């Protein structure tokens, strides 16, 4: 069968999912998780470890380093919702790669904040590349803090092949 006659990887169900908002996820930002994240990246700036240093630099508490947008509150008795953009394509694809990350920050995120994120798939494309058949899903996630302010917008690109 030639490529031209091959059915699209993108199912009607996947097309219909574009733009549909997920259930909200609650994420906590606390001092221990900020320290752990900062340490795993290799930061040496004391604002990420020492509350007095953070406050002296003008933050409410330890600031979240770039890339850290809180830790989802885990509940072992609740099955996690199927991630957005992970509907089954028309032919099975086994592997997943992270294609890219873009985060826009609108205001500071600090330890003590409780964030709520809502995601929606913004586009699904199929392409043939060096990995063979690929499905590229772009997802936009909006994070709000406890005051309802949008603090960050993350655009993530997932590749399945």
């Amino acid at each position, binding site marked *: 069968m030639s490529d031209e006659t091959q059915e699209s990887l993108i199912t009607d169900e996947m097309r219909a999912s574009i733009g549909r908002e997920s259930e909200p996820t609650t994420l906590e930002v606390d001092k221990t998780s900020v320290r752990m994240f900062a340490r*795993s990246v290799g930061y040496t700036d004391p604002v990420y470890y020492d509350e007095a240093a953070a406050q002296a630099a003008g933050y409410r508490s330890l600031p979240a*380093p770039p890339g850290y947008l809180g830790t989802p509150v885990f509940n072992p008795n609740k099955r996690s919702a199927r991630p957005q953009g992970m509907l089954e394509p028309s032919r099975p694809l086994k592997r997943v790669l992270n294609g890219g990350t873009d985060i826009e920050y609108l205001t500071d995120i600090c330890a003590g904040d409780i964030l709520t994120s809502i995601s929606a798939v913004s586009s699904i494309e199929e392409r043939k590349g060096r990995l063979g058949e690929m499905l590229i899903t772009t997802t936009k996630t909006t994070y709000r803090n406890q005051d309802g302010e949008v603090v960050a917008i993350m655009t993530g690109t997932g590749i399945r092949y």
Partner: protein
Amino acid sequence: MGASWDEVQEGMEIPTLEKNCSTQQLVHWAAGSGDFYQIHYDHNFAEATGLPNIIVHGALKHAFLGQLLHDWVGNEGRVKRVGCSYRGMDFPDEDIHCKGVVTRKYEEDGEKLVDLEIWTENPDGQRTSPGSATVRLP
């Protein structure tokens, strides 16, 4: 003490951040970020998916670029946006050079801003995570 907007010039390079991940750092990152996909710490699993070795998390390279920017702007400035694509794999115990060049200096809504081209570079000089960023400076 970070960069000051007045001293920034378009085309200038910012100080390089040097990284080289041990497998231990990747495990630490898995816990810190919550990304427990086994291709980043289980060699057999990585090989079974066709990879030559375990690979550095894309999001860790994104976070390295965040550190590159934070360390440059300091706490008087802010990282406003960081984005990159994951174009090539990086492996443990190999150098990852994190670099940035100022592409635009401007004021908008009363903020002193700088756009940058940012990227991570592998030991062969290939840009494995090209991207762009915006920072606010004092």
